[in-house]
Structures are given as structure tokens and as C-alpha cells.
């Protein structure tokens, strides 16, 4: 057993599952957005605004944002542990990734419910 204090969950199986489930959520959300853009003839501010005023769209968007955060954390954690061998540099890079994702999440909540 190789121990690690910085990965998302405590087990590889857990991280693997989160990565797959978040990928499905992101795929569904992408399909939703692309479908919306393709099949809405007149995509004005009013249409966007009315759509994002609906609670289910906000919940779906927030779900996608949380999924993005978890997905990106696991992916970037993997990349940083592969390529950054200096412990301090790796920790700082991972801390920066975590901070950026946290900012995006809070900012996303503010945007979604501030419309």
C-alpha cells in the first residue's frame, strides 16, 4: 500500500469512481448546452436568463461545476505527482489548483443565484 496525503479520496478505487461519475455528469451537461445552442433558433439574453432562472437548470449547472472541480482535482493531482518531483513545488502547485477550483465553485454559486 502506497500512502498519499494529497489525493482526493483515501483510496484509488474511490478516486477512480469519482473520476468516472463526474465524467458522465460533465458529458450530460455538455450535451445539454450544445443541444441548447444548436436547437434554439433565437438565443437572446432573455431566453438564457429565463432558462437559468429555473431551479433545475441551476442545480444541474452547480452539479456540473462540482463534478468539474472533482474531476480536475483528480486529473491535475495525477499530472502533478507524475511530473513535479520536488515536494514543495508539487504541494504549491496542488494548493494553487485547489484554490482555483474553490474560487470557481463559489463564484459559480454566486453567478447562478445572482442572475
Amino acid at each position, binding site marked *: *500500500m*502506497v500512502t498519499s496525503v494529497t489525493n482526493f479520496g483515501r*483510496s*484509488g*478505487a474511490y478516486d*477512480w*469512481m469519482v473520476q468516472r461519475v463526474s465524467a458522465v455528469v460533465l458529458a450530460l451537461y455538455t450535451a445539454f448546452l450544445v443541444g441548447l445552442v444548436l436547437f434554439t433558433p433565437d438565443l437572446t439574453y432573455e431566453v438564457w436568463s429565463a432558462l437559468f432562472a429555473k431551479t433545475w437548470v441551476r442545480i444541474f449547472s452547480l452539479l456540473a461545476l462540482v463534478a468539474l472541480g472533482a474531476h480536475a482535482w483528480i486529473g491535475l493531482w*495525477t499530472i502533478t*505527482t507524475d511530473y513535479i518531483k520536488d515536494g514543495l513545488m508539487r504541494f504549491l502547485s496542488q494548493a494553487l489548483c485547489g484554490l482555483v477550483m474553490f474560487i470557481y465553485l463559489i463564484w459559480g454559486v454566486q453567478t447562478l443565484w445572482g442572475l
Partner: protein
Amino acid sequence: MLVSVYRYNPESDKAPYMQDVELEIPVGKDLMVLDVLALLKDKDPTLAYRRSCREGVCGSDGMNMNGKNGLACITPMSQVVKDNKLVLRPLPGLPVIRDLVVDMSLFYQQYEKIKPYLQNSSPAPAIERLQSPEDRAKLDGLYECILCACCSTSCPSFWWNPDKFVGPAGLLQAYRFLADSRDTATEDRLAGLDDPFSVFRCRGIMNCVSVCPKGLNPTRAIGHIRNMLLQRAT
């Protein structure tokens, strides 16, 4: 034919270099790369490489031939030589001891980690532990590994984390014992693999499958281990 071979003697060389040798190859013969190395050594006896059985059983002469890992003794020139040129390098990712000889310690450490021996907590029977032909068949494609390290040293995940990622060779053997009906240490074995590095650092790029000189499939074995870990966790 032009043979470009990796040379490094830590006692006399500051850095590794490629030595180009023009070699006369006997006409009408499809030599194995190991035979080419013998011709090279005739010219320059200081060249170092490992070899033993010369028939793909011992796994000593794993090396990188024109960019692809394989066993020199069972790789015919017709299969690897391009534009009348052959580039020979040591297995990538492991420390070089000299020329084509690499230090396999990390590779063996990972192999040791998966406890590559049968563990059974029940008392030993008078004669032997029996296994049905069906259960025995589950070990096919797993037990044949000769530990030549061609797969693990072609795997980027193993290059970056050779101390943490078990690597395709070790994981193939891990599954060989997980799949064995006579082994009772399944839970302990899985517990030792359920971290983000040992198994899950495999990204499924299948370099291991592409280079295995015995035609084995470590990626499939890793998939089986992953499924066992997921089922254990649900």
C-alpha cells in the same frame, strides 16, 4: 548495415553516447538481434549486454530496438530494421549499469511487493492442493510471464513513479495469484493494492500489451484487479 548502439561505462565515460558501427550482415539470413550483438562484440569486446538462453525463455536480453522494447534473441532483423539501420538502447527508465545492462532493482522491488507466491491458510494436504481444470485455465495468459521487464519499462506511469506504481509485470503476477483458486490471501492482496498509485496509476495506454514478447495482456489483468477492488468497496 548501420548499427547504432548505446554505450556507457561509468568508470571511463562522463556521459552516455551512441556508437555507430557499420556491420557486414551475412547475405540470405534473417539474423536475430542477439546475433547482431554477437557480431558487434566480436568487433568490440568491451560491449556489455545480458544474455543467457537465447530462445526467449530466460528474459535476460530485454532491450530497446529501434524504439520498441523486446527480447533481442527472438526479434528477427526483418522485424525491426528500418532503412538498413538498427538503433539499440537499454530498457528505458531504469538506471544504466553499463552499455545495455540496466539495474532492475526497482522492477524486482515492485514484484516483491505483490507477494508473488501462493498463500493458503488451511493445513497442507497429504499430497497436493487440487485444482479443477476450469480453475487452472484461469491462470493461462498470466503464469507465462518471464519477468523480462519489457512491459514495465515501456510504461510512462512506471517511468514517472517506479517506486510507487507496481507496473504491468508486477500487476500481471498480482492477478495471477488473485485468480488462483488455491490462494486464500485475496483480501490482504487487494488491501495492499487499493491506493491511488499501485494499480490506479495505469492509464490503459497498453504499451505493455504492444511490447510483451510472450504475447500477454497486462492491461486486461489490471482491469480485472480494478473490478475486484471496486466490488470489494461496494
